[in-house]
């Protein structure tokens, strides 16, 4: 499969002797190989999960439904206080979703449009790079997972994430002093008795519903969205050329948040 590191170094070494460099060297010494290496080639059976948000099909009510489905699935309580807020998936307007992309004369629809945001499950995740305990890590299938049994609560990952996708449990939902207050805001908490709640001092975020994927189900938000509008959220395997996400990306113009940072987000937006 293409050029591996060893071969590349060999070619680079030989090229160096002849005073060649970069692309020219590759073209002469291994024609065609570089193009092959640039294309993602995955070992068979390995998945790379990604999501496409078809914003044309999304409206605020539908987004609220996705948010509710997710937060009920994962026992995310409403703290009634933006400072303590925990959000796995949320909505944000165009300007703040894609800072730097806005201008004064932007399409009227887009100006007021809200976008559904969540963890981008970046292929090159800065959060995993900085975590001192590997409590947040990248799975083979690309999902950025949180090990809440291990997290020490240093919040380095929150500083590293350029997308504000991470939330911290500033308090403990079960603390006796607050149970009454929280019960009022969340009368049926915990909403999912098969999923744990959280303790104070750990970071959490969207996991692409890893536990649902393990059962062969799609993420909760995808299920909720597609119940109303088919194809509003498309979830699938980027390594499979026939998958829904690949098809959607092939057919439509799509954007990602802050691609210039090189984190390679796996959340795509059709606008």
């Amino acid at each position: 499969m293409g050029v591996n590191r060893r071969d590349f170094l060999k070619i680079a070494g030989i090229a160096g002797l002849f005073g060649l460099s970069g692309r020219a060297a590759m073209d002469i010494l291994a024609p065609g190989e570089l193009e092959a290496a640039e294309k993602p080639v995955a070992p068979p059976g390995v998945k790379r999960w990604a999501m496409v948000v078809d914003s044309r099909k999304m409206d605020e009510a539908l987004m609220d439904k996705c948010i509710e489905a997710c937060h009920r699935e994962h026992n995310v309580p409403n703290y009634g206080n933006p400072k303590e807020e925990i959000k796995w998936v949320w909505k944000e307007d165009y300007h703040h979703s894609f800072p730097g992309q806005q201008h004064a004369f932007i399409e009227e629809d887009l100006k007021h449009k809200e976008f559904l945001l969540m963890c981008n499950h970046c292929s090159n995740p800065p959060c995993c790079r900085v975590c001192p305990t590997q409590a947040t890590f990248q799975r083979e299938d690309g999902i950025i997972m949180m090990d809440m049994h291990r997290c020490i609560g240093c919040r380095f990952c929150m500083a590293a994430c350029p997308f504000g996708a991470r939330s911290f449990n500033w308090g403990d939902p079960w603390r006796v002093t607050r149970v009454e207050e929280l019960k009022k805001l969340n009368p049926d908490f915990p909403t999912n008795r098969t999923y744990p709640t959280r303790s104070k001092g750990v970071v959490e975020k969207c996991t692409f519903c890893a536990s649902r994927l393990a059962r062969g189900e799609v993420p909760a938000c995808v299920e909720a969205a597609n119940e109303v509008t088919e194809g509003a959220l498309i979830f699938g395997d980027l390594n499979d050329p026939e998958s829904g996400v690949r098809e959607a990306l092939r057919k439509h113009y799509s954007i990602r948040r802050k691609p210039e940072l090189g984190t390679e987000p796996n959340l795509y937006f059709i606008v």
Partner: protein
Amino acid sequence: MYDGGKIIVGLIACLAFFLSPFIYDAGTAAKAPKPVLTEKAKEAGECVNSTPYMKAWHMHLLDTWRHTVVRNDERYYSPRREARMARLDKNLFDQWRHFVSDGARRYVPKEDKVYYKSLQETCLDCHSNKSKFCDECHNYMGVTPYCWDCHIQPEEKK
């Protein structure tokens, strides 16, 4: 020895201080509680592994479960496979664990059963009487596992 008397008195006072909890509690040892099984647990007749193993190593099992589920996405537990793997264990701690827990090494269930690794969905499904099955013994041992900080306890009938 300078101030020998003072030192000896001091030593005795220290010793008495550090032994005071034992002296205070002497002869009042509480009886070790026996874990109570629910009807469902009795009916099932067996846990995910042998009783001696579960008694001695359930915390280790749960620790392995949470680790392998979250980090490796391995969500099912097969005691047969585990027993087979145990023979291959080269790790000294694991060797000792199998030796101490007796049953673990030899316990190879006849049926090849597979369990979903979940404290909330699997363990507490049978052992829905947490206060009798878990807490009594934990309290007796003076341990407060923080599992319950997050994992939802079953609703028990009073």
